[in-house]
């Protein structure tokens, strides 16, 4: 049962999400969760080895974020968000 995990803040939400991941899951960083691109470069590179990580482009652009460590993270739009909810069996939101 593949799960989409949405993370809307760094700190506790991101940490708890990391504990709940199974191989084949996807993570979507949105809202303040996109700051993980700055704060959590090493966490993210570790994460990328096990699961697919996406960021929501509207939230990235709004906050002037850049992918500092040039990690292989997929920028998606709202349509892509909807598609992720369809391809996974369930969604868990971490906030």
């Amino acid at each position: 049962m593949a799960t989409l995990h949405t993370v809307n803040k760094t700190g506790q939400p991101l940490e708890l999400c990391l504990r709940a991941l199974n191989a084949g899951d996807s993570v979507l960083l949105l809202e303040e969760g996109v700051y993980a691109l700055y704060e959590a470069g090493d966490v993210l590179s570790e994460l990328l080895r096990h699961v697919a990580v996406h960021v929501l482009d509207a939230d990235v652009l709004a906050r002037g974020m850049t992918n500092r460590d040039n990690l292989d993270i997929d920028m998606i739009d709202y349509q892509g968000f909807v598609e992720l909810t369809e391809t996974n069996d369930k969604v868990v939101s971490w906030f």
Partner: protein
Amino acid sequence: MSQSICIISTQAPYRGQFAKEALDAALVSASYEIPTSLLLMGDGVYQVLEGQSPDQLGRKNIASMFQSLELYGIETVYIDGESLGERGIAPEQLLPLYTLLEGDAVASFLAQQDKVLSF
């Protein structure tokens, strides 16, 4: 067999209405005889500390609500062991109605659930 629901509760007991709403959701779901589980993670583990008396806050005692879960057919509350450890909480300080999930057990537990709601 109806689909299972897991309610994840991650906030401290008197932070807004999160803890109460998570419990209400669990009670509603169990009232409809849906297989329901409750998982406490992060600050959510503070919800089952013994000895809460929030009278002066004018709030309902969250721990008291937990004690009714059994009557709704929810026999145990799942707790992320790592969250306890991080906060220096010993299992003896908790209401005696939990099951600890250690390490990867949290992830595999969640993988088995059909639906997950977070509060």
